Every structure is written in structure tokens, then in C-alpha cells.
């Protein structure tokens, strides 16, 4: 069995199994948790819970005014790598192929040149995020292993993907195998680290919006 056979077969199987078990476990254990009853009466003009949820989610797309100035880099850089990752993950034809193969849904891909450009911007942005984490005293203080591991498993598929598409340094089959293995590593880490925010962000922001809305807090 070659490295590529291993990556495309057993490695992906194990990683996908861990990812699916982990994500489902975390989501269901959270959603089914007993809720503390809110005995206070809801504010009279607070509107529907669904509207509050959407409002809360939307309002947290940027920081509140007092923090906006101090967090401009985090805001812009955060959007840069999130949008970049979305373009690369969901716009590259080969990735769409993978998704179609597993889930049966697909859409048109983008030219490889656009993907390469997005990947380079994403990589630069991720490096910028790491530099900021290491140079900002406050951020450095509150950073944990989770932050660094999450950064590593996110950046590795970007680097190996760029190398694969551009046939850099190693043979294509080796590069493709490394890229798939780095993706498998990310899948395994996903449910247990902060990457889980990709799912939880919808729950947490909306829930916060509902709680604030019920109390009549303007956000």
C-alpha cells in the first residue's frame, strides 16, 4: 500500500468516523442539555425568538463600537482567512468532487488560478494571525495549546494543497497524499478543539441573541 492509497483509504475513513462521531456527540450533548428555566417575564416588545436569534447572529458579525478600533486587525484578518478558506474549500473543483462523492451534492468550481490566489492570501492571513498571537502580550497570555494546534491543523492543508496544485518539491502522488493526510488530521482534531465553532457559532450567537432580546437588551 502506497502512502496515497493509505491516505485515500484507511486514513480518510478513520478521520471521517472520528469527525462524525465527535461532531454529533458534541452537538447533541449540547442541544439536549437541560435548560435552566427563565422565570422573569419577557420584555413586552421583544419580538419572536427566531427574529432575536437572527438579529443576535448578525450583530455579532463585527465587534461592538468600544472594541472596534482595537480589534480592526483581528476583524479584517479574521474575515480574510475565513473567506479565503471558504473559497478554497468550496470552490476548488477537486474538493467539490470529494464532497459530491461523499454527500452527493455539487456545484460549479472556480479556475485553479483563483484558488491559488485565495490560498496564498489565506496562508498570509493565517501567518499574520499567528504572529499577532505571539506578539500581543494579552493574546499570548490567554492562548492555550488548543489555539496553536487548531492553527497548525488549519494551516497544514493550505500549505500542502498549494504545494500539490503547483507540484512543488515532491512528486504529485506524495504531495496529494500529504494533503489528504493533513486534512485527515484536521478532521480528527475538529470536534475536540476550537474548530468546532464552525458549527457552534450558529447556536451560541443565536442563543445569545434570544437571551438578550427577551430581556430587551439593545445590541
Amino acid at each position, binding site marked *: 500500500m502506497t502512502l496515497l*492509497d493509505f491516505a485515500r483509504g484507511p486514513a480518510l475513513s478513520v478521520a471521517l468516523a472520528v469527525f462524525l462521531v465527535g461532531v*454529533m*456527540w458534541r452537538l447533541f450533548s449540547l442541544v439536549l442539555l437541560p435548560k435552566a428555566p427563565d422565570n422573569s417575564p419577557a420584555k413586552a416588545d421583544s419580538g419572536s425568538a427566531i427574529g432575536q436569534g437572527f438579529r443576535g447572529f448578525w450583530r455579532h458579525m463585527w465587534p461592538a463600537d468600544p472594541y472596534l478600533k482595537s480589534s480592526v486587525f483581528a476583524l479584517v484578518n479574521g474575515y480574510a482567512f475565513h473567506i479565503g478558506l471558504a473559497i478554497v474549500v468550496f470552490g476548488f473543483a477537486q474538493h467539490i468532487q470529494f464532497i459530491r462523492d461523499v454527500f452527493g451534492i455539487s456545484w460549479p468550481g472556480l479556475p485553479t488560478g483563483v484558488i491559488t490566489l485565495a490560498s496564498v492570501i489565506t496562508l498570509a492571513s493565517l501567518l499574520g494571525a499567528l504572529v499577532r498571537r505571539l506578539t500581543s502580550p494579552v493574546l499570548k497570555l490567554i492562548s492555550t495549546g488548543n489555539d496553536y494546534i487548531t492553527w497548525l491543523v488549519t494551516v497544514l492543508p493550505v500549505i500542502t494543497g498549494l504545494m500539490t496544485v503547483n507540484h512543488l518539491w515532491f512528486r504529485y502522488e506524495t504531495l496529494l497524499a500529504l494533503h489528504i493526510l493533513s486534512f485527515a488530521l484536521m478532521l480528527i482534531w475538529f470536534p475536540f478543539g476550537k474548530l468546532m465553532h464552525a458549527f457552534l457559532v450558529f447556536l451560541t450567537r443565536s442563543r445569545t441573541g434570544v437571551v438578550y432580546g427577551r430581556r430587551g437588551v439593545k445590541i
Partner: protein
Amino acid sequence: MSERLTIGEHLSQRGISRRSLLKYTTWLAGLMALPPTAPRAMAQALAAARRQSVIWLSFQECTGCSESITRSFSPSLEELIFDLISLDYHETLLAVSGQAAEDARQKAMEDNKGKYVLVVDGSISTRDDGVYSVIGGKSNRETLIECARDAFAIINVGTCSAYGGIPMAKPNPTGAVPVSDIIKDKPIINIPGCPPIPEAITGTIAYIITFGKLPELDDRGRPKPFFGDNIHDRCYRRPFYERGQFAKAFDDEGARNGWCLFEVGCKGPVTYNACATLKWNGGTSFPIQSGHGCLGCSEPGFWDKGSFYKPLAAWTDKRAALIGGAVAAGVAAGAASALLARKRKQQAIKEKQS
């Protein structure tokens, strides 16, 4: 047979000029990316060389490799076996049969001890003492060991002798193995493919005759001049790959427009062969040009690497049970965890009340 004559003498007897020989060596030198001085040196070396004795053994194979060599254009099969080599044993092409054929093999081995080239196509059965493929009462394994003993070098023609090929595909009922699993003490050249490109076979043989040594080989024992590049890098459909234009089915608009076949399973990016440059039938076409993706037939285990029609980016192990099972297990674990939390909550309320 005229082993005493040199190739040059033999060619002039047949009315083939030195200019024709130079033309051929120029073509061969170009093909193998040899320096500009090579054609003349090759022509001189070839003219002075004696025809190379070749013994061709066919084991667990489909004769596709022999079919392929009969379609060689430069040199043609006739030029190869009449001018360049002395094909002393080849079951399919041999005029005689039975004991006479076996005698021809024995005689060639004795007359050219230590000098003949052994060509093997087909894998070797090892299960149950190799009873699944026996020729003249001898198992393939016995014949191979016997013939390899005094060979100068071994050329594995086709993926079966080079890497086990289709006979070795799961579940490998005959215990098929490649030549390199049995013969460890001889130089081995692999010319894989299912079948290999005929010019890669004849070109490699011509190189050995000319230079008296093996061409440079890659890490899988293949001559670099023919197997140095992957098909994807030399494919004329590559621009469509770069633009993200893919055929999604064999009869869709993309296929009709000649777009990249990656999404319908082309293995060109991980397959090292000269199909995209030398092509087949005298440079007429090759599978991708005909609208079908590369199967990766010159790579080990190509038969067992998942579907030919699944893209390289796909998960080869795909199992609905694994996805369904993992989701169900995750939901169950989550529900159990929430249930425990609820129990703990009830317990805490009870304790507070009591």
C-alpha cells in the same frame, strides 16, 4: 540464425543503408533525450554489435504485451527481430512448438551464457507450488529461475511481470508475484503498462544493445527516458484542468469539448508513462485523446486502487455504513451525555430539597 554477423553487416546484406541506421539512432536519441553526439556513436556501436540474443518468457499474462510489441513502429517488429535482436524463444511468435521450442530455449541459453537478455511478461504463480501456470511440465517459477541464472539482464515487459498486475489483484487466487520477488541477483528493468508502449520496449532493448548497459531507472525500476514524467504534466488537456473545466460524464458537454477527464477518474496525475508524448500506433492517439481517462496501468497495484471512474480526490474506502454508523454513534453518545446531565440535575434538585 546469423549470430556471427554484426548488425551492420546484417543490415547491409538486407540493403539497409548506414543513413537509415543513422536516422533510426537519431530518432532513438531524441526519444530518450540523449546528447546530440549520441546518434552517430549509437549508429557506430549498433553497426559493430552482434545481434542481441533474447529469450522471451510468457507466464500469467494475456499476450497483450506481445500484441503491443507487434505494433511497434520504430523499430518495427520485423526490424527488431530480424535486424537488432535474435529472438531465440518466444512462444507466441516461435514457428516450432512442443519439445523443439524448449530445445531452442536451451540452445540459446547455452550459446549465449551470461549474455542473453531475458524478457518476461506475466506474473509468476507461487500458490500450491505454482500449479496454476505450468509450461512443458515446469512451473513458471522453475523456468524463471533456470533462465535467469545465466542472463545478462531481465526486462519485465508489462505490469504483470513488473509489479504483479491483474493476476495479483485481490484476491490473488494463484499467489501471483512479480519477477523481482523471485530474482534478486540480476539487473531488472521494468517496462510496465497494460500493455506497455511498444517503443518503450524496443527502445530499451535498442539502448542495451547500443551501450551495453542499462538505461537510467527510476525508483520503481523503470527507464527514465520513457517513465520520467507523469501523464498529467504532458497531457494536452492540462489547460482545461488549470481553468477548472472538467467533463463530468462521458457524454456531457465537457466531454464533447475535450475538457479534462480528472472528474471521471483520470489517473494521469499519479501515472508515470510516455502515453501523452509517444502515444500509440505510431503516434496516432492515446486513451485520454480518445476520451477516456488514464487507468494508471503502469503503476503498481493499479487494479486495486478503487474505481477507475472515481476521481483521485475521492475517498476509496467510501462506505455508507461507516458514515451512518458514525453519525448514529455520535448522536447516541450525545444523547447519553445529555441524559446523564439531566440525571445529575434531578439528583442535585432532590439533594437541595431534602
